[in-house]
């Protein structure tokens, strides 16, 4: 039990899977210089080099490393989800937006964008905060009040961070229920062992059937 509780070590630590996946999100960039024989990265041309001025959607980790250093190889534009148009949608009614479709790591990726010091940095920061504030109440209500109701419709709108928050809320609710019926003192098989046993039984039954 002790070893597997999610220690809240730095979320963007080197080994965190979420951080790696979040930094894979695409960022629109335009190349200022030509890049020799890396043409294969740009599907639209058959040219061996990347011609200066081409517009490409680069993953964030690539854009970040190219942006560093004295010579500006590329300049980065704000991804469409964080642009003015979308920001108005978020401020209008954050609860309606399906953040999962817009990229499951909306907040994490938003946080990374700020480190790029884009021109509309502050607007992005404030929109992240306001969207979360707007959605938080519904997430908490959903996780606290529904026991065995089908929640997939609400959960499907949430992004990864919100889902973690939602499941933490539900876990809290379930633990409280268990405590109330004295179930919490029940020593139970560890979840890993139980799942492992279920899989084994499934494998045996599928083999025999």
């Amino acid at each position, binding site marked *: 039990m*002790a*070893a597997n*509780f999610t220690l809240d*070590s*730095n979320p963007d630590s080197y080994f965190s899977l979420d951080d790696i996946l979040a930094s894979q999100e695409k960022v629109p960039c335009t190349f200022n210089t030509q890049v020799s024989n890396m043409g294969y990265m740009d599907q639209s041309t058959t040219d061996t080099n990347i011609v200066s001025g081409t517009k490409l959607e680069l993953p964030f980790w690539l854009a970040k490393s190219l942006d560093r250093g004295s010579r500006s190889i590329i300049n980065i534009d704000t991804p469409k989800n964080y642009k003015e148009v979308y920001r108005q949608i978020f401020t209008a009614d954050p609860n309606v937006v399906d953040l999962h479709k817009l990229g499951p790591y909306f907040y994490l990726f938003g946080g990374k964008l700020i480190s790029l010091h884009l021109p509309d940095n502050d607007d992005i920061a404030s929109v992240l905060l306001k969207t979360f504030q707007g959605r938080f109440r519904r997430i908490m209500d959903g996780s606290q009040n529904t026991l065995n109701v089908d929640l997939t419709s609400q959960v499907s709108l949430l992004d990864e961070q919100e889902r973690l928050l939602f499941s933490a809320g539900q876990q809290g609710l379930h633990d409280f229920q268990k405590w109330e019926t004295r179930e919490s003192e029940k020593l139970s098989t560890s979840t890993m062992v139980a799942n492992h046993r279920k899989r084994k039984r499934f494998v045996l039954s599928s083999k025999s059937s």
Partner: protein
Amino acid sequence: MSTEDVGDDLLETVDDEEEEEAMTAPEVLHKLEEAWLNEKFSPDLLPVKSNLVECMLDQIVAMENNISTLKKGDFRISVHRMEIDRIRYVISSYLRHRLAKIESLTTHVLQEEEKRRDSENVLMSPAELEFAKGYCNSVMTHLTNTALDHMPLKAATPNAKEIAVLPNLDSYVFLKVNENTENVLVEEETVDAREEIMDFEKGDQHIMRYKPIASLVESGAVSLI
């Protein structure tokens, strides 16, 4: 879990190191529980309370000897055995939490220990330190064998700072104030918020980021709940 009834007949007062006044077992247990809760809720590894752990382990041994002398059907056996189980649970849970932190923040913890080498309250007990070192190079050797060896040398050197997993000092914690402490810097100066200083009175309870009160937790002025 009051242990006063255990206090008198079975336990003699615990003779602790010279500089601390002699503490009775229930007080030691109380302090250990506090250390346990602090360790449980703080994102960072706290200095080890090995004297408390050692003392309570001796307590358990003493109680077990006392119990073995009692007649088989004696009612007190089950009461004291329950007591022992609960004390052992607190100790093992405390050490488990510390172990989990050592395992996930290994490099960071080792660097911290380096800094505290000369200072008095050391971060890890010798056993934990040995475990941490052993664990750290077992992970590194594994990573090198499976991946880094097969990479061109220049790319293979893992840069320690980047790899080190750091505790999230900004995570929020619940805390209870034990001693009045004035002008605690709660929020640093930021572009849109000015510096915030607060006074803690005894018995207050707050929710706040861990970083500003990290030192207070170590000194015992504040305890996490």
